[in-house]
């Protein structure tokens, strides 16, 4: 499994200029729609599911990383969107720190192993300090995609 297989190329944002959690998640979902990975009509439902999940505990997993996620029967496969925010987004993290890297993961209800694999790869990737440093310096979404392909091995 490789993260790049699930990463939507149009849904990689190197400079998220929104610091508000719900709106920044909505923007990432819109970018999945732009990439024709999801229909526009599904955005409100997926957003609700993601925010419902956040109510059960923030998906900020530490070190300025969050993995908002949801699984819905309407989705056929795992989709990943990514954003980097220099200013940081308030995600109700346990450590109180703003979140700089967001990996949004939406998936079908089935496929527990693939889903777990994706989360495992994301956490391994963000524990790599080189990845964190390079992502902060990336100027284009292509640079981030190349970085993920290169480092997620």
């Amino acid at each position, binding site marked *: 499994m490789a993260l790049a297989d699930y990463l939507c190329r149009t849904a990689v944002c190197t400079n998220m200029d929104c610091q508000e959690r719900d709106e920044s998640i909505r923007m990432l979902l819109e970018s999945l729609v732009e990439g024709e990975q999801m229909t526009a009509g599904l955005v409100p439902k997926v957003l609700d599911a993601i925010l*419902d999940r956040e109510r*059960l*505990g923030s998906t900020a*997993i530490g070190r300025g990383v969050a993995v908002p996620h949801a699984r819905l029967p309407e989705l056929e496969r795992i989709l990943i969107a990514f954003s980097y925010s220099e200013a940081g987004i308030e995600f109700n993290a346990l450590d109180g720190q703003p979140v700089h890297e967001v990996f949004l993961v939406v998936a079908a209800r089935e496929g*527990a192993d693939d*889903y777990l694999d994706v989360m495992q790869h994301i*956490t391994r990737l963000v524990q790599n300090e080189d990845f964190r440093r390079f992502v902060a310096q990336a100027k284009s979404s292509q640079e981030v995609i190349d970085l993920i392909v290169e480092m997620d091995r």
Partner: protein
Amino acid sequence: MKPSDEHSAELAIKNPMGFHVRPVQRFAELARLFQSDVEVKLRGRNVSGKSIMSLMTLGARRGDTLLVTARGVDARQCIGVLTFLAGNRFFVEDSLDGGGEPGRHMERLAHMASCFNSKITVSLDERQADAKQPDALRALGLEPTSVPELRIEGDDAEQARAVLGQLCQHCYFVEDAMGKRKDRAS
């Protein structure tokens, strides 16, 4: 409590989705409340049981068994709490569809309280109950959204207060209630 102690348990992952974000968060957040070091081993890899990110990298699936070891003054209590958590699918309620056992929050409180030496009394509306007795908690009419007062006396009172406080703060992890309390707050 003993000056230093070591306790281990083999914890089977029963959740259909494996040891995913919510189980990992709840495990690490409870582990952090103890002084003991907590180590989790799977397939030859050892990680800290207090780090969400490190636990996620294990990628533990349903059917995997984690070897959890706590070392420190509160090792026994820590393993007791984490064993109960894992045995109850980390309180993840996806498959219940709102139809979970109505009194499960009181069972959770009583089991968690029983992991400690301290005498723990729950007070609600000026009535009191022994926190280790589910029947006494039922008689008290404790709801998932209730925020009772806890009186805790004993050598592990600090840890007991932290763990039980976490339970109360999160509506005893009754997930339907968690959403409601947050909605009211916002």
